[in-house]
């Protein structure tokens, strides 16, 4: 990996690699590629899902490819898209500008999109290994292990104690957050890979752990039994009282169809997701009021985010810094809780401030239904008879942090059973880890795989992207079931993004970091000419510099020259080929002309340009193509013409201006306002020469003067409003170019109307309306 690391690359590029292309059957041509750290969202994901990659693909309308990319790291995309706690969004740099990209909603969209298509039957991976692996528990951790191992050629049997597979997804999570048919579909997609499922069989009770090895002949066992044992809360006089119910048991019975309401005034104790789910479920069962008592404050509450807002919207009341102290009862039934107020004391073992009761703060809460949701532990006592399976002090299964190997040879454990209750994505991450360990165990008999298998978890250090000018844009919100309708139904609350909204939302992504190797080039290349690798042709594909065009389909690869043929399928399904490697719409620097002034680096809204070493002791600008969006604003400010953008170089624009018809009018427009040019041509005939560029900020005074010098009668520069500019400061730079050119024209004595700046709003539709409504045409728009 490190053999190609070069000092010439910017600091934050951590390693180098090579792109390997075999043009026309000749030996591989090795091209240097630059591998950079992943984007913050990917680093934040416990399972390392290639967030930026799949968000980009959604933005490009490539939903199927996007989902395939997700599935590499997350076998349950539709479930994850609904109930993940979304650490990716917390890390999203878009959040520094306005709101994070709605990553979870996008994942949900693309997964649902596929479900709605009734995909063709999956072809199971070939069974290449004789060994069979038992997976105990069909929750997210177990399903991930099963999926990973089946893909590696093993036989896998999943054991589920309940009749319905899904583990806590089915038992603990209410339907209005996660519809059952979604769970069924995602579980089925894993079973379709050839995984065997046996339900109603509880390992440890019905079948002993050792029997799995001895009589069933499994080579290894994964224990993903979850944390289904409710933690008890000791409340004075709380034993054997009617109307006090365990939260998880409550969820389990409601999810199983038992929708009895046992009270009218519900109190939920706890601050986790189960507490929230209990409260919202109780509401749907028709209680008159429900309140959540939590012993710390909202900041410390494990449940957070949109679910809390949704619960509040539905009428759940939250009371913080409250603990139940005693149960008041009448006739064996709860009538009220005696509660205490808390303050926060010093930090406890969990790193949160410990609640300390305030003396004399007792008060009474009238209630006839108390739901306790104060935590869960694994049913580890199932395995007590096999004493050699060790437990942690917290009561969870003890497993090695790296390999997830338990104290029993061949038995691995992961998910909530090891970590205690955590998010679905954490369980998936553990599942991947366990699958690697199990394969290694079956290969070598060693319980601990070689340490080289574990890559250090990358940290996003020194990876700061200046998005100073990122255009603000509203986060797309999923439509929701009206609150009134939620009261009596278990229908899903969030209704998902529309295709249009999802694509818009995906395009909000600032695409920090590298492209992270979507590998579309490799999978689309029929002749397998293109291969991506780090450190060698056969190494696992790593990070790479490909770009997916934002719209319009097609495939773009890093500019490498005429090196081979890429074969690919267009969005319409037609087979295409490109005889040379395609140029992406990025800027590039002619090093020999760069004088290292750094104006481009300071201008670039995406931090794509850095100054590196050049010849003669003069620095030279370098463009990181993966960050560059090709707007070309840097180009118009470059004093020497060293920086150019593919497709919109100085000479490309000049080429458009050569042989202008006499008295023609030149329209420079950014691509978001390209409709202006076609509109004017349609309306006024051939007198208009339309020169579209990516961003109006690419047009420098030079291009305006060039047009006039070439004989243009008039020049129109069309841009977006500065705050709606799609490329940072581009619109502002266009204004400056216009101002300078207008002043030069004034000195020359040319009439001011010969140069006009037209500022049009962000929406193409609005633009057309604007032009059609303004009967005065151009004259009315003169700035």
């Amino acid at each position, binding site marked *: 990996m490190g053999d190609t690391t070069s000092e010439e690359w910017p600091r934050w590029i951590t390693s180098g690699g090579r792109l390997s292309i075999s043009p026309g059957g000749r030996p591989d041509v090795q091209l240097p590629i630059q591998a950079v750290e992943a984007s913050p969202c990917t680093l934040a994901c416990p399972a390392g899902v290639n967030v930026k990659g799949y968000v980009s693909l959604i933005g490009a309308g490539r939903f199927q490819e996007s989902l395939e990319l997700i599935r590499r790291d997350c076998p349950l995309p539709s479930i994850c898209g609904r109930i993940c706690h979304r650490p990716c969004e917390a890390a999203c740099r878009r959040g520094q500008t306005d709101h994070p990209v709605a990553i979870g909603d996008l994942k949900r969209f693309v997964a649902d999109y596929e479900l709605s298509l009734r995909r063709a039957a999956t072809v199971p991976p070939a069974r290449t290994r004789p060994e069979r692996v038992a997976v105990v528990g069909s929750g997210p951790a177990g399903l991930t292990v099963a999926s990973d191992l089946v893909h590696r050629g093993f036989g896998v049997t999943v054991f589920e104690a309940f009749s319905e597979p899904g583990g806590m997804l089915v038992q603990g999570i209410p339907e209005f957050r996660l519809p059952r048919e979604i769970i069924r579909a995602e579980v089925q997609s894993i079973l379709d890979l050839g995984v065997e499922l046996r339900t109603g069989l509880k390992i440890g009770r019905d079948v002993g752990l050792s029997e799995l090895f001895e009589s069933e002949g499994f080579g290894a066992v994964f224990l993903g039994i979850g944390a289904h044992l409710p933690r008890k809360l000791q409340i004075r006089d709380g034993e054997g009282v009617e109307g006090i119910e365990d939260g998880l048991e409550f969820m389990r019975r409601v999810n199983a169809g038992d929708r009895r309401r046992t009270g009218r005034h519900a109190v939920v104790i706890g601050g986790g997701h189960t507490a929230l789910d209990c409260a919202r479920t109780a509401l749907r069962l028709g209680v008159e009021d429900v309140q959540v008592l939590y012993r710390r404050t909202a900041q410390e509450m494990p449940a957070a985010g949109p679910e809390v807002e949704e619960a509040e919207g539905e009428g759940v009341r939250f009371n913080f810094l409250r603990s139940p102290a005693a149960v008041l009862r009448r006739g064996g039934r709860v009538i009220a809780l005696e509660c205490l107020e808390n303050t926060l004391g010093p930090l406890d073992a969990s790193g949160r401030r410990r609640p300390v009761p305030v003396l004399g703060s007792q008060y009474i809460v009238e209630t006839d239904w108390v739901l306790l949701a104060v935590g869960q532990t694994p049913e580890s006592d199932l395995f007590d008879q096999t004493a050699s399976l060790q437990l942690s002090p917290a009561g969870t299964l003890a497993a090695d942090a790296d390999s997830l190997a338990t104290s029993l040879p061949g038995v691995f454990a992961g998910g909530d059973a090891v970590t205690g209750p955590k998010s679905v994505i954490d369980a998936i991450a553990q599942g991947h880890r366990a699958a690697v360990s199990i394969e290694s165990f079956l290969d070598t008999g060693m319980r601990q795989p070689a340490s080289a298998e574990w890559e250090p978890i990358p940290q996003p250090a020194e990876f700061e992207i200046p998005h100073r000018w990122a255009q603000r844009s509203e986060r797309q919100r999923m439509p929701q079931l009206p609150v009134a309708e939620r009261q009596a139904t278990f229908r899903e609350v969030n209704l998902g993004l529309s295709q249009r909204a999802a694509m818009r939302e995906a395009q909000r992504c600032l695409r920090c970091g590298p492209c992270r190797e979507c590998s579309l080039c490799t999978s689309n290349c029929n002749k397998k000419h293109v291969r991506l690798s780090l450190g060698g042709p056969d190494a696992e594909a790593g990070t790479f510099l490909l770009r997916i065009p934002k719209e319009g389909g097609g495939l773009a690869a890093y500019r490498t020259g005429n090196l081979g043929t890429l074969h690919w399928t267009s969005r319409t399904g037609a087979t295409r080929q490109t005889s040379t490697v395609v140029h992406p719409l990025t800027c590039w620097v002619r*090093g*020999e*002309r*760069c*004088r*290292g*002034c*750094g*104006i481009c*680096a*300071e*201008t670039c809204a995406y931090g794509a340009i850095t*100054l590196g070493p*050049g*010849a*003669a*002791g*003069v*620095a*030279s600008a370098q463009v990181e193509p993966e960050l560059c969006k090709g707007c070309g604003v840097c180009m*118009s*400010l470059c*004093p*020497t*013409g*060293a920086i150019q953008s593919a497709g919109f170089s*100085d000479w490309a624009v*000049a080429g458009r201006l050569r042989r202008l018809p006499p008295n023609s009018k030149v329209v420079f427009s950014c691509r978001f306002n390209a409709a202006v040019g076609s509109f004017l041509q349609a309306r006024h005939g051939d007198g208009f020469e339309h020169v579209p560029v990516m961003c109006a900020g690419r047009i*420098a*005074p*030079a*291009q305006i*003067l*060039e047009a*006039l*010098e070439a004989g243009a009668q008039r020049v129109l520069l069309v841009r977006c409003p500065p705050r709606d500019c799609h490329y940072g*400061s581009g619109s*502002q730079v266009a204004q*400056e170019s216009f*101002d*300078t050119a207008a*002043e*030069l024209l*004034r*000195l*020359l*004595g*040319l009439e001011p109307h010969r140069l006009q700046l037209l500022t049009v709003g962000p929406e193409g539709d609005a633009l057309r309306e604007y032009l059609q409504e303004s009967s005065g045409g151009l004259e009315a728009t003169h700035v």
Partner: protein
Amino acid sequence: MSEVRQRQEPRTTDAGSLGIQACYQCGRCTGLCPLARVDSGYSPRRVLSRACQGDSPDGIQSDSLWSCLTCGLCQQHCPMSVAYPEFVKQARASAAGHDLEPPCSHGGALQNLMKLMTRPELRQKRLDWVTDDLQTSRQGSHLYFVGCLPYFDVFFAKLGLGQLGIASSTVRLLNAAGIAPVLLERERCCGHDLLWEGQVEDFRKLAAINLQQIQEAGARTVVTSCAECARTLKRDYADLLGKPLPFEVKHLAELLDEKVAAGQLSFGALEEKVTYQDPCRLGRHLGIYDAPRRLLGSVEGLQLREMPHSRSNAICCGTSCWTGCDRRSRAIQRDRLSSAAATGAEVLVTACPKCAVHFRCSMYQEGYIEEGAVQLQDLAVLLSRAIADEGPAPRDSSPRQPSKTSSKTAPSEGQPSGGAEASPKKSGEEPCRRKKKTGISELACSSVTAD
């Protein structure tokens, strides 16, 4: 030796008789060439060698066609006096016929401006900078050829040079010498850059318009504040006419030098340490080395500290004709600026507005804009500050030393008689660093600190 020199007297017109055949490949040109010093791939000797061997007798096949600065340092020291700049000029003229385009800086905006100026029907508004306190004439013996300063003032506003300060200072100096110059509303670019880029046709158009106007104005002496204008009018317009010009052309330094010698002009005191950059066109092309130095010497208190390479050995400012600006240019500028700074001078004085643009650009990048570093000023602006009875400083062409109170106050000075307040609405009026928040100056400055 004298025989040899006679043999290679400049043969002017076509490439074959330019005297390049006299080259005996000693390589002195390459050793001296400021470009070759920062770019080992560039070799005038090799270009000449190929041209002499007939590979490309017109020189246009050379990769180095657009690289030469035409500064003339090689010619100065060539044992055979090969006119390399003239050879390059001719080669570029041939290249124009082959559709070979120069690598224009600034996207070719300035070339486009010049070409637009070839249109005879233009009615420019280029004299807005002339304020009431400046005395000018409609007809008269002296004509001030302003050149492209009004355009530079707009185009390079972000550099904060305030190039029109050179123009107003020049008029003020002429006024002090008892001259109210004629200014031409319809003056064009002299055509220097187009000529040296091989655009001979466009050069001729510009020259024809200018010559006609100068003659109509009846001027007997044409003064320029620009070294390139001086060279072009003196030499190339005469060549174009094929006979001596009906008027005399003088750079401002020459004229003022005569006036001081004749006792018609005197300067007050200016306690400053300066160094002087000989512009190639004024120095090696026209041989004017002493006049600016005598002028600087006539200012009481002004100390001239010469750089190691000065007069005929001066190093070019790194770019010519708005072409070929690149890392080599910056390396040359960087070295020249450090030479200037090493003299201990507070101000680097030039007599060419283009030297000023090129140095100023690098000064931002090399960190010279901070206070205390050597600053940049045109000769005319410096001298106008030294005019005895002059009040506030004229329009500031570059931030000066912190010790000079006038430099601090000049931009905000409210007195209407001062040159600093000429045409207050113009964009180049204030130092750009204050005017535009995202101006090039900020960008360049911060990029320097980032380094």
